[in-house]
């Protein structure tokens, strides 16, 4: 894959990510692999298992989405218990100093490919908590967000809409945040370090 230019840390990533082109080079084994990848994308898109990390208030919208009114199982989506099993990490709200550490830890435990969906404005710029001392305003500095769902809180329709969009992205191979995280690991790490200090904290409570 050609190395796509990444925006600097001062430019939001999410908008450009949706317009990533699938590269089309023709080398036989690779082509074969890509053909296989396309099939795999189909399966990935239609079997999304999610881990909802309820950092904030947006999580309250999820029950509605899961249950009979909107029934996200029809999209093949299911809630999962552990990050190992999950494909999507749902960040439902703002990230604070404490939760971000756990978010990162959880995200890194997920198997690839994996996707991050952020809810509400708090994940974009801190929303109404933007000046709170413990809230980290921009999530995409620390984790590669594949999809934002707008609304404070987003309505269930918006959530469903977002999920549909995510499925499209995955099916077309555009949700590549996890690759980005691997590629620019150092960059993310330095941001994380700057924000929360040590991610894997060692202190008297955790030893």
């Amino acid at each position, binding site marked *: 894959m050609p190395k796509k230019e990444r925006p600097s840390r001062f430019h939001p990533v999410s908008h450009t990510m949706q317009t990533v082109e699938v590269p089309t080079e023709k080398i036989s084994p690779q082509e074969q692999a890509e053909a296989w990848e396309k099939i795999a994308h189909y399966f990935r898109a239609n079997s999304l298992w999610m881990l909802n*990390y309820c950092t904030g208030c947006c999580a309250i919208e999820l029950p509605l989405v899961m249950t009979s009114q909107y029934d996200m199982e029809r999209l093949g989506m299911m809630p999962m218990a*552990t990050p190992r099993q999950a494909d999507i990490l749902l960040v439902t709200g703002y990230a604070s100093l404490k939760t971000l550490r756990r978010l990162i830890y959880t995200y890194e435990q997920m198997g690839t490919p994996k996707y991050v969906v952020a809810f509400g404005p708090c994940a974009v710029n801190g929303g109404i908590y933007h000046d709170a001392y413990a809230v980290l305003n921009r999530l995409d500095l620390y984790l590669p967000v594949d999809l934002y769902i707008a609304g404070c809180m987003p309505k269930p329709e918006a959530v469903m809409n977002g999920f549909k969009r995510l499925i499209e992205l995955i099916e077309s191979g555009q949700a590549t945040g996890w690759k980005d995280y691997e590629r620019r690991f150092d960059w993310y790490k330095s941001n994380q370090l700057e924000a929360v200090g040590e991610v894997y904290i060692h202190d008297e409570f955790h030893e």
Partner: protein
Amino acid sequence: MNIIHLILGLFLAGIAAYGIGRLKPAAASWLTLAASWAALLILFLGGDTLAGGNAWGLLAFKMTPLGWFFSMTLLFVYSTNTFFNLSVPAAPTRQAAYPMLYLISLASTIGVFSAENWLALFIFWEIVLWSSTFMIGFGKPGRGSIIYFGMSLLGSFMMLFAILVMGTAYQTFEVKGALMAAAQSPGPALLVFLLMLFSAMVKLGITPFHIWMPEAYHEAPDHFAPVLAGGLSKLGAFTALMVTSFLPASTLMAQPWQVRGLPLLTYILLTVSAVSIVIGTLMAIKQEDAKKLLAYSSVANSGYIMIGMLMGTPMSVSGALVHLLAHALATTVTFMVMAAVARQTGTTRMDELGGLLHRMPITFLAFLTAILSLVGLPPMLGFVSKWLILQSLASQGLFLVAAAAIFGSIGSLLYAFRILSTVFLGQLKPKHRQVREAPAVLLIPLLLLSGVTLVLGIYPYGLVQYTAKIENSLGFADTVQITGLSIQGNNGNLNALLIMGAFAIGFLIALGIFLKAPKSRKVDLMDTYTGGEFIYSPELYSYSTNFFAPLERVYAGLPEISRLYEALANRVRDLGTLVQYLFFSPLPSRTALLISVVTILLIWGEAI
């Protein structure tokens, strides 16, 4: 070369080993190794037609198929275990006597299995007993060796009583002859039958007599526990099988009460064995020490052997014999593994271990094989035997016993997983980070024994054929049948090779899928799901204490049988205290009083 030479040679080698051991302990261990392997070779080459002999009148020997089978089993256990003797730390404790006792007990077991005379059998039986007691004494301090000795002595004396009853009632001490005579003319035959069986049950560790097992296995030196568990307890099966086949309960009990075609007595004994399975399983689930857990698993497995022998059908006896071998091999491996673990880490408590799989992989594999065989899963030998025994239970329709057998079988999965998971799986403790794989000399016997378990599990036909031969020699009308590659059961056939084949095909498919799929990333053991929490203490991040707590709560009130024996011992003590108080007063006047009163009583008693 005949049996006498073999036994005498081993005795002499034992004494020589003592002399050498005083000078150079390592050389003595090598001598035990050489001697026991040589004995194994001789016995193997000699086969069950190895010449017997007559040393003095009493010590006459004759090899029978049954004796050969048992001797081979025990010799194999003994000789593989000699590798562990090599790793005994020599200097701090003077254990020159250990190789001597080891070889003496080995020689005596051969004596037990080939004796033609009950008294000779008993003599060897007792030599095994006290020599092994002393060997247990080399281990941890405690009451284990005494409990072992006391219980075994109880068994031996029951046996002696039975022997003497046979000797006085039938005027013969010949092993087969005496039992046959008892079967011909049942006078005190029932007494003989029960006492003999009880003594065998003590040795096998069947329930009311099992209390010595956990204590002795726990306290025995780690390098002797395999022999004790895998070898010596099988002595009981030998006499039990001879009694049940030459003096079957069906000829003894002319009484009308029968349960499902079996005499009531047999049924009661079967129930006792079934209880043994249940109690062994339940107690094994509860233990915190690996060796004690394995000991209770032996209690349970002995129950299977006993059931197989008591039912007395060709298939069940065959199952009992195969199970005996399977259990001998498997339990030897498990105790050897525990010895290796204890050697490398210094403990056998399960809550102090964990994750050793990553440090001792080969040991783990051997342990896995053995534990699978203990549980009775294919493709191990334990499966073949459990299949045979369950088949016979099903065809007899003994539901109570079958329920216990099933319970034991499924329960064994519980304790097997417990020991596997707490010792080898789970988190590696930081203090064990530097632990290394056991030295090669310890791995040889492990691989040998588990290899035999596996090979016999896949291809058990020769073995089952041999049990048929044993049954022939024991006078069974028909024996277990094998046609081609299938063992013919009463209501089904077993083809172990086919099972292994199906499993192998399944494994290949699984491997194919596994390899085709993307390669996984290897992560550290502590990199697990913690609910987002940061945890760095492997000691705390493991589940090993009070493992089956929900289940244990169900039978927390189960009374322990050892209490009964303790109470008994305390009564003896009380009697002793009373005697000391009454008759051994320090005051002369008390003595004078006793003398005069008792004299008067005697004279009065004479007068009336």
